[in-house]
C-alpha cells in the first residue's frame, strides 16, 4: 500500500510514523513554505503543490488528486482541517480510484452541516440543544424561535466551524442586531449564508466520545475526552477520561454517540461532541468526521494507534477490534502549544523558532514538527506542538505535565507554554473544577505571573548587553513582527486561515 498525505506539519509526521512502522510507503504533498519542514525529511516521496496559500495547496482538490495519481498511491489521508471533511474531495478521490481514509461522501453529506447532523441525531433520540429546526428564514423567525427557547441564545452559521461564525444574543434586540451581521459574515467566510439559533448553555463542559466504525453497523467506543479548557470556542487542553463523568453518565453518552454514528452508517475514526451541564443533562454538539488533533490522549489511555485503525478500516472494510478489547487505563492530558500570544488575545505570531528543546521522560509524548531554526508560516494553523503526558491517575499526569512544561524550550516566538504552566498550578484545574468558561477568568492571573518575572528579565537583559555584541537578524526573522501585525488585522476581518478543533 502507498499512501498520499494531503496535509502538513505535525499531523503529516504523525501519519508517516504509523505508515512506516506498518511498511506503508508515503508520499507527502507540500506547499512552497513547507519545503524545509520536518515531515519532508521522512516521507518516502514528496509531491510539490506549487503555491503558498491554503487554497493554492492543501485545499486544492485538483492538484492533490493529480499528485496521488501521478505517484501511484492507493489511498489518501487528509489529516485534520483542510479537506478532511469535504465531500467533494472524497468524491474526487473515489472517481480517481483512490481510497479516502475517512467516511464515505454519502455519510459526510448526511452529517455534513450542523443542521443536518442535528436532525439525524434528533431523529435517533439523541438530545439536541433546543433551538430552530432548520435554517432561519428571516429576522422575525429568529426572534420567535429565540423567545420560545429562552435567552441567551447563540446565532450560528450552518456551515461554520472552529469557533467562528457565531454570536451570543441576550435579548430580542440582540437577535435583531446580530441576525444580519452573522448572515453576512457566514456568507463571506464560509460561502453559505444559512444561519440558525439555539439556546446558549451557561456553564457546560465539552465532553466527546472517540469512536471507531466499520461502515456496516459495527461501532466501538475508545472512551471520552474532556475538552472544556477552551478560548474563543477553540480547545487548548484535552484530557482522557473526564472527571465529570460517573459510570452511568459515561454509559449514556457512549450509547448516544454510538447510536448516532450507526444511524449515519459511519465508517472511520469519528468523534461525537456533547455539551454536558452540571446536573448531567447532555446535548449533541457536533460530529468530527476525521482524525482529531487531540486523538493522542486516547491513544495514551487505550494504547491503540488510531491512525493504524483508520488504515485497517479503509483497507479491509472491517474493524478488527471489538468493544471488550478496549481497556481505558490511567489518565492522559494534552496541552496544545500554539504560536500565539495569550497576552494579546491569542493572536497568532508567525516567525522563526530560534531554539527548540522538547521535553522527555516517563509518560511524556510530544507530537510536533518543530526543530531549532524552523519557521512558522503565516499561511497555516498556529498549532506547533502537542505535549501530552500519561499517568496512572490524574494527579500523576498533571505532575508529569508540570515537569515537562518546565523542560520545554521554544525560543523566538510567544507560545501558549506559559499559559499551560500556569494552568497546572491552578487549584480549580487541579481539582477538576472547570467548564468551558474557565479560561476567561483565568487569563488575568497569567498577567501577574509574567509581571513577577520582569525584574529577573531586566537583570538578564543587562548582563546580555554587557557580554555580547548585537546580532543582526536575517530578513525572515526581522519581518516577523510585521507579518504578525498583518495577520492580526486579517483575523479582525474574520477571514484568517482555517483552524481545527
Amino acid at each position, binding site marked *: 500500500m502507498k499512501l498520499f498525505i494531503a496535509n502538513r506539519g505535525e499531523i503529516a509526521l504523525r501519519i508517516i510514523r504509523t505508515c512506516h512502522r506498518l511498511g506503508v510507503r508515503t508520499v507527502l504533498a507540500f506547499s512552497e513554505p513547507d519545503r524545509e519542514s520536518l515531515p519532508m525529511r521522512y516521507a518516502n516521496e514528496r509531491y510539490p503543490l506549487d503555491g503558498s496559500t491554503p487554497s493554492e495547496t492543501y485545499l486544492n482538490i485538483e492538484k492533490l488528486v493529480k499528485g496521488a495519481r501521478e505517484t501511484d498511491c492507493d489511498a489518501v489521508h487528509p489529516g485534520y482541517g483542510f479537506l478532511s471533511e469535504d465531500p467533494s474531495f472524497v468524491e474526487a478521490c473515489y472517481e480517481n480510484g483512490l481510497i479516502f481514509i475517512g467516511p464515505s461522501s454519502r455519510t459526510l453529506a448526511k452529517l455534513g452541516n450542523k443542521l443536518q447532523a442535528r436532525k439525524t441525531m434528533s431523529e435517533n433520540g439523541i438530545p439536541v440543544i433546543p433551538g430552530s429546526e432548520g435554517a432561519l428564514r428571516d429576522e422575525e423567525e429568529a426572534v420567535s424561535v429565540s423567545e420560545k427557547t429562552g435567552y441567551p441564545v447563540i446565532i450560528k452559521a450552518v456551515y461554520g466551524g472552529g469557533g467562528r461564525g457565531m454570536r451570543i444574543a441576550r435579548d430580542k434586540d440582540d437577535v435583531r442586531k446580530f441576525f444580519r451581521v452573522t448572515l453576512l459574515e457566514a456568507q463571506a467566510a464560509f460561502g453559505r449564508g444559512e444561519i440558525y439559533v439555539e439556546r446558549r448553555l451557561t456553564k457546560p463542559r465539552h465532553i466527546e466520545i472517540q469512536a471507531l466504525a466499520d461502515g456496516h453497523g459495527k461501532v466501538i467506543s475508545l472512551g471520552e475526552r474532556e475538552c472544556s479548557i477552551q478560548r474563543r470556542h477553540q480547545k487548548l487542553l484535552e484530557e482522557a477520561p473526564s472527571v465529570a463523568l460517573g459510570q452511568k453518565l459515561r454509559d449514556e453518552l457512549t450509547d448516544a454517540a454510538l447510536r448516532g454514528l450507526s444511524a449515519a452508517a459511519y465508517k472511520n475514526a469519528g468523534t461525537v461532541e456533547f455539551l454536558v451541564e452540571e446536573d448531567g443533562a447532555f446535548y449533541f454538539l457536533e460530529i468530527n468526521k476525521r482524525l482529531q488533533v487531540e486523538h493522542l490522549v486516547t491513544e495514551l489511555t487505550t494504547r491503540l494507534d488510531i491512525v493504524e485503525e483508520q488504515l485497517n478500516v479503509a483497507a479491509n472494510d472491517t474493524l478488527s477490534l471489538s468493544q471488550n478489547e478496549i481497556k481505558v487505563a490511567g489518565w492522559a492530558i494534552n496541552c496544545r502549544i500554539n504560536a500565539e500570544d495569550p497576552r494579546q488575545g491569542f493572536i497568532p505570531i508567525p516567525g522563526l523558532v530560534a531554539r527548540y528543546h522538547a521535553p522527555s521522560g516517563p509518560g511524556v509524548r510530544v507530537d510536533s514538527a518543530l526543530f531549532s531554526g524552523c519557521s512558522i508560516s503565516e499561511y497555516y494553523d498556529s498549532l506547533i506542538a502537542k505535549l501530552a503526558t500519561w499517568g496512572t491517575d490524574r494527579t500523576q499526569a498533571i505532575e508529569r505535565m508540570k515537569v515537562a512544561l518546565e523542560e520545554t524550550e521554544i*525560543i523566538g516566538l510567544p507560545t501558549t507554554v506559559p499559559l499551560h504552566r500556569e494552568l497546572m498550578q491552578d487549584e480549580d484545574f487541579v481539582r477538576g473544577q472547570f467548564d468551558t468558561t474557565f479560561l476567561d477568568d483565568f487569563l488575568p492571573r497569567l498577567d501577574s505571573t509574567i509581571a513577577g518575572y520582569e525584574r529577573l528579565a531586566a537583570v538578564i537583559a*543587562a548582563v546580555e548587553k554587557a557580554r555580547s555584541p548585537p546580532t543582526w537578524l536575517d530578513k525572515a526573522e526581522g519581518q516577523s513582527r510585521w507579518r504578525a501585525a498583518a495577520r492580526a488585522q486579517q483575523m479582525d476581518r474574520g477571514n484568517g486561515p482555517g483552524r481545527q478543533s
Partner: protein
Amino acid sequence: MRVFRVQINGTIHVVSLEQKGKNQFRATLNGVPFEAEAASNGNITTWLVRSESESTHAHARNLPNDRVDVWIACIPFATIVQAIGLGGYAAAPEVRRHTSGGQVRALMPGRITSILVKEGESVSEGAALLILEAMKMQNEIAAPTNGKVKAIFVREGDVVKKDSPLVAIE
C-alpha cells in the same frame, strides 16, 4: 561597575553589574543581588541565574538599536537596554562585521596555526592570509579586498577570541 537602564513594558529598571569572570556577572537590582553565568555561546545565550530566593535559567539575544530579547519560562520580554555613564559596553566590538575599516577579524575563536603573508605585501581579494584552527578544523582566512597588508596583529600560536582583529589591509 557598569550601570544599565533597562526598559520593559514601559517600566524602567536600573541594573548595576560587576564582571566576575569571562561569562560571570554579579548584578544588583533594587538592592537585590543576582549571580548570572552564561552557559553557552551563539546568537542566543543561555543564562543560569541565582538570587537569594530563586535559581533559574533564561535565554537572551542582543539585537541592534539597544534591543535585547529575553525569554524566561518561555515568556518573551522585549527590552531596551542602555548603558548609563562610561564603560557600558564590553570590550567586544559593537557591530559584528568581520572586515571593518580594512580590518580582518576572527570569525570564530581559535588558534593561529600559520601566517601566510608579510607586512607590506600586496594581496588580491580571496588570497589566503592566515590559517585559524577552530574546532579541529583549519580555516583559511582570506583577504576581503585587493590591497596591501598594513599590519598583522597576531603571531603564530596565538589564541584569539571571536572578532579579534587579525590583519589590517589598506
